[in-house]
């Protein structure tokens, strides 16, 4: 019984932390000045956020064999997120977009 409650707390905690990261990533997407810095926000926060939410869901109601699917999904998200961010940033660089720098235009 105590174990169940503890598991519930850990699971909900993971989901809450994940949502906080996803929120930060989304706000970063809006606030950051250029495509590269936005890719930073999207790649890191989305990987950690989605991974954390998925792990929380897997732990919720106890960990069963079928929950390995969620773990697999978390791995997929964590691997594909940075890859996509890299592909986007690379495409931006190849098309000649310059990176925003602080001294150039002053604070955002």
């Amino acid at each position: 019984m105590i174990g169940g409650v503890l598991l519930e707390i850990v699971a909900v905690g993971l989901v809450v932390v994940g949502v906080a990261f996803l929120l930060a990533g989304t706000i970063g997407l809006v606030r950051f000045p250029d495509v590269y810095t936005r890719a930073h926000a999207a790649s890191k926060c989305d990987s950690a956020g989605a991974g954390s939410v998925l792990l929380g869901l897997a732990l919720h109601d106890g960990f069963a064999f079928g929950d390995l699917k969620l773990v697999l999904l978390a791995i997929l998200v964590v691997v594909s997120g940075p890859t996509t961010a890299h592909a986007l940033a690379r495409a931006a660089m190849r098309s000649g977009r310059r990176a925003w720098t602080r001294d150039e235009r002053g604070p955002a």
Partner: protein
Amino acid sequence: MRTVKTSVALFAFWCVVVVPEGGVDLAVGAGAALLVSVWAARFLWPHADPFFSTLRLTRLPGFVVVMVARVVRASFQVLMIVFDPRLPIAPEVIQHRAHFSADVARAAFANAITITPGTLTLDVEDDTFVVHCLDRRLADDLLSGRLENDIERLFHARRTP
């Protein structure tokens, strides 16, 4: 041998996705895994066997733990920056040289750079990694060579520069 390894991996994947109940499921999964790997093994790993060396498998959990810690730290940094009204960033593009002989190690390194705090891989040309930093002070994992050493330990594929 390559076919056997591939079918073992595919069968494990099948078990995770399908969650087999009973012998029929298992038999269908095993048959499908074998059929697919007979067809696909030769172009999935054209030059070498799939790498499940025991050394790598024993080092993998530690590596995963370290990487998860880094991802969480990276996200937390972005979170702190994003909620700071001054938006304290000073982006910079740096070139980093690292030597790996295996393509998979270079790809893993490029991805690891992206996922660790403050850095994002823009391009890879041979041994030069073009990296965008959110702030130079946040890029210590890369600049100190710690990340490189972790990947090298996992893949054992760094040649002497």
